[in-house]
């Protein structure tokens, strides 16, 4: 049963919608750029397969109840994370619209719990670590079982957190978690067993499908340029804008020193190495205490000070980046792929 609108607040629902929507946009761009045209019908038909497969149960021997496939892990293994995320999202959307299985506002939450967590958290961080590029049978089974259990603990944890943060239900976190997590441990085992059964069958019947799917597929490294540009933008934004809001109050160390000695900074000795280095520092620091050198000029006023802090923030950011790039280029070992 998916998360319902009745237990959700607009803030939580809206946030999760934004996260899921952003991920859908990102995955769509990734799938469109990927040159494999075959993926488009494959995604659609595997989504329909998942829909049908979720309605077919099998009995669990000891308990007498029945279980069915969830499918997030299976799709991630067969399609890779981006296409799998889109497929799972589409299935959840159809379920929400036609069967009211999860609300419209809760779509964001459900897509996150059942799509993002298996495809982008469990698959790369748990499954790929354990299985590696070409796993043999036991390793594959272990990887699937562990991934299924972990995925089906994190998903319900997401539900619990979203419900508790919404505040509509009076259940406290501990009680709700105690209700959800143990049951989903069993459900995780069931999911793992089902996925293992399907994967091993397909491996026996058409091994090339599994080999193609499990083949070393790079996780999609982002080009270095994008990473650098985004870091530069973030550094500029933080340094330029946010540093203007920096608090003028003393930080922890200064406050402690003020409390002990009565002054925020201690004066060092007047002679010796200490004095030499202090004089040197005074000469080389062109933005002392993170603002302009003639900060004593009160005529400029507070605006001037914050402008000084922002300029020093930008300059400091650029200088830091320059040092980082330089060391990166110096230390980089050129790989041949």
């Amino acid at each position, binding site marked *: 049963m998916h998360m319902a609108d009745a237990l959700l607040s607009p803030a939580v629902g809206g946030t999760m919608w934004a996260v899921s929507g952003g991920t859908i946009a990102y995955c769509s*761009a990734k799938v469109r750029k990927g040159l494999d045209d075959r993926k488009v019908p494959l995604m659609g038909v595997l989504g329909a397969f998942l829909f049908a497969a979720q309605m077919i149960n099998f009995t669990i021997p000891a308990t007498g109840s029945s279980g069915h496939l969830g499918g997030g892990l299976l799709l991630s293994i067969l399609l890779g994370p981006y296409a799998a995320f889109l497929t799972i999202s589409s299935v959840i959307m159809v379920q929400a619209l036609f069967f009211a299985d999860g609300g419209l506002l809760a779509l964001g939450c459900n897509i996150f719990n059942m799509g993002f967590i298996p495809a982008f958290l469990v698959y790369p961080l748990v499954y790929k670590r354990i299985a590696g590029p070409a796993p043999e049978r036991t390793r594959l089974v272990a990887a699937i079982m562990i991934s299924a259990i972990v995925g089906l603990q994190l998903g319900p944890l997401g539900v619990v957190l979203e419900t508790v943060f919404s505040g509509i239900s009076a*259940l406290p976190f501990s009680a709700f978690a105690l209700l959800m997590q143990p049951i989903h441990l069993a459900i995780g085992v069931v999911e793992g067993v089902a996925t293992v*059964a399907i994967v091993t069958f397909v491996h026996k019947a058409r091994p090339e499908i599994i080999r193609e799917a499990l083949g070393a597929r790079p996780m999609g490294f982002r080009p270095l340029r994008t990473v650098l540009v985004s870091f530069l933008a973030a550094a500029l934004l933080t340094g330029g804008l946010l540093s203007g809001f920096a608090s003028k109050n003393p930080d922890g160390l200064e406050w402690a020193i003020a409390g002990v000695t009565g002054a925020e900074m201690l004066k060092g000795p007047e002679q010796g190495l200490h004095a030499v280095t202090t004089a040197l520092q005074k000469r080389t620091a062109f933005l002392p205490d993170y603002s302009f050198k003639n900060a004593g000029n009160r005529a400029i006023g507070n605006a001037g000070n914050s402008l000084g802090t922002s300029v020093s923030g930008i300059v400091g950011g650029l200088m830091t980046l320059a040092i980082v790039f330089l060391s990166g280029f110096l230390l980089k070992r050129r790989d041949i792929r």
Partner: protein
Amino acid sequence: MAGIDGTLLDFKSLDLLADGDTAIHRLDPRAKVLATLIFVICVVSCGKYELSALFPFFLFPVLMITLGNIPALYLAKKIAVIIPFAVVVGMFNPLLDRQVMLHVGALGISGGWISFASIVVRAVLTVSSALVLVAVTGFPGICAALERLGMPQPFAVQLLFLYRYIFVLAEEGGQMARARELRTFGTRGGGIRAYGSMIGHLLLRTWMRAERIHMAMLARGFSGVFHTRRHSCFGLREIVFILGWGLFFITARLIPVPHLLGALVTGILQ
């Protein structure tokens, strides 16, 4: 033998309702999707203890059902299936929240019961609005509306492919499930090996089918655009629809109409 066949029948009947031809059906899908979204947000944003403030919102699904010629009993049965789940989570509220908030004569009603009733009413409202949206718009219409409103095109193509092949694959899955049931005397027996084999075969057939579809796409020069006959345009009627309902929802959210009505009536009676 209900299982997958019953679900598919349910799916198909809701889908068939979208083929109706009323004034509501003829509205541009974007108007209906936006109105439903505003509705859901307004309902969900009501406070934890607001109960009667939710009642004016029933006007939206009720009007859409009557004007859209949707069988009310059918919809009520679908809603009745979903309500138990909301009840299961909400029923802890009366147990945990015992502070009395309301006095009806000599009876004191605790906040927990009010919030529990609020949860159930909320569930009915949101579920009915989603079902009504599908019944008057249809899934392809909703996908087209979302795409025009900014959904990425690969995802829209995925949704339409999924919708197209759900019927095919659910029937195949149903045939397999029925065959297994007949061979195991009504139980879902055979264990995990039979299950793995069944679903594995379904997966293999799906994979082969995807390859055939891909070749058909190449042969027909499919570029990702699904062409439809019913063209939609966003005109005056749609603007009136959205503005009218939007204003109503926001007013109902901000002004407690039932309280005012009750005060008026009890004031007259005294």
